[in-house]
């Protein structure tokens, strides 16, 4: 792998720090009056999401991290692993465990296109599409005449997640959800 000198540091660069892949968030050249020049940088650990503040001697290098983000299709889960397929002509498959899939699993529907981050070809994070269409499996029936604007009730969707939906939504309908906020957006336009 190539390495990057501190003067090449820029936001978005993926490097190895303390044995773990990190993304550089920001980097600043620092030099006390008579002293050694440093580079003060913020790194986001791509495994844990934690942000590390680190200061390096200017001119030092960090190994680049073999990290790629790929659009992949979610295939299925066997309960312990979630399986994804590359959408290029290799159709290679990778599997991720529950810890890697994390909260994304609440939204994963077969054939969803997800952003999977691979480190040395192994998945380290899964981001679902921003919007998913999911079927309502269970919710209180709509009470006739109850059309108060802004009213909401819990509904359990096909992936098992429970969200708040408007009172007029019934079992069997497909709703669009924003996965970043977990909020109902609309009835699905293409049921």
């Amino acid at each position: 792998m190539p390495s990057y000198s501190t003067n090449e540091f820029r936001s978005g660069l993926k490097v190895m720090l303390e044995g773990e892949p990190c993304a550089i968030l920001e980097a600043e050249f620092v030099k006390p009056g008579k002293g050694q020049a440093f580079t003060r940088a913020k790194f986001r650990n791509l495994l844990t999401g934690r942000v590390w503040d680190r200061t390096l001697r200017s001119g030092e290098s960090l190994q680049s991290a073999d990290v790629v983000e790929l659009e992949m299709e979610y295939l299925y889960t066997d309960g312990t692993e979630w399986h994804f397929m590359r959408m290029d002509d290799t159709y290679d498959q990778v599997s991720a465990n529950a810890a890697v899939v994390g909260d994304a699993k609440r939204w994963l529907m077969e054939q969803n296109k997800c952003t999977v981050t691979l480190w040395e070809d192994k998945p380290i994070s899964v981001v679902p599409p921003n919007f998913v269409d999911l079927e309502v499996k269970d919710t209180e029936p709509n009470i006739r005449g109850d059309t108060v604007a802004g009213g909401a009730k819990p509904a359990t969707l096909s992936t098992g997640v429970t969200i708040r939906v408007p009172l007029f939504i019934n079992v069997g309908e497909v709703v669009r959800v924003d996965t970043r906020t977990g909020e109902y957006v609309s009835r699905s336009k293409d049921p």
Partner: protein
Amino acid sequence: MTAEWRPAIDPQTLRERAALVWQIREFFHNRQVIEVHTPILGSHTVSDVHVESIRANGGFLQTSPEYFMKRLLAAGAPSCYQIGPVFRKGEIGKRHNPEFAMLEWYRLGYDAEQLRCETSELVNLVLGECSYQTISFQSLMRERFHVDVFHESNDSLSDIATEHGYQGGFGEQEILDFLYSEAIRQCDAERVFVVNFPQESAALSRTVSVDGLEVADRFELIVTGVEIANGYYELLDGGELARRIEMDNRKRVELARPPIEPDPRLLAAMKHGLPSCAGVAVGLDRLIALALGRDNIREVMTFPDGLA
């Protein structure tokens, strides 16, 4: 695609900058401190271990006008100031540009304290009135890290540095540099003069004994965490300067940096006799950026790195 030709500074800021520089010139004019111009390209340069000069035409672009201004003073010049470009290789960042504007002035008969006072008056003029705190390097570090850096072991200083995210080398001076840069960044007071630095960083300042400890009679002015000025009670002893250059060169060789030949003309001028004086250099772009509320000095420069 057309080349990026526009300056980094906008026309209004250009006007505001000009007005501030005018005020600065007036400040010195009113005090009978004369303006001088010395060469930007010189045959010799400073030996500071952590300052790299840019080579040009068989010589060096000057990193500060200090050597030339001292030769003027040795030849009988009165107190004088200079505003001009200086160059430092590889320094690029929010507060660094390889070429930047420096305001440097020398006061005959002043000591460091008198010059701090005048520096604060100049800064008040540009940034508005404010109170100034003066704190020694040792006390600043004690306040921030709860240790006496002059007497603590290198191992425990290394541990403190690591706790604060330091990933560099563990030479004693390097760790002090890191801890110092952390300390000033998080300084509570808005304007602080840090004084009495470790004697290793004396450069061209005198050293003085304080509580049995030999320290550099130097000061740095820190404004909201940013170093704005660096001042010396000037060293007069050319022999001592030659010894320091030799020491710098030993360190430079250790760090695989080119050694710097001492400037024989400066040493000759000091041998002839430099009058007792104090001098200070102000990073003019930083000061103007602070005055105009800009976070990045590029915004107050015409054509910074990448556009020049």
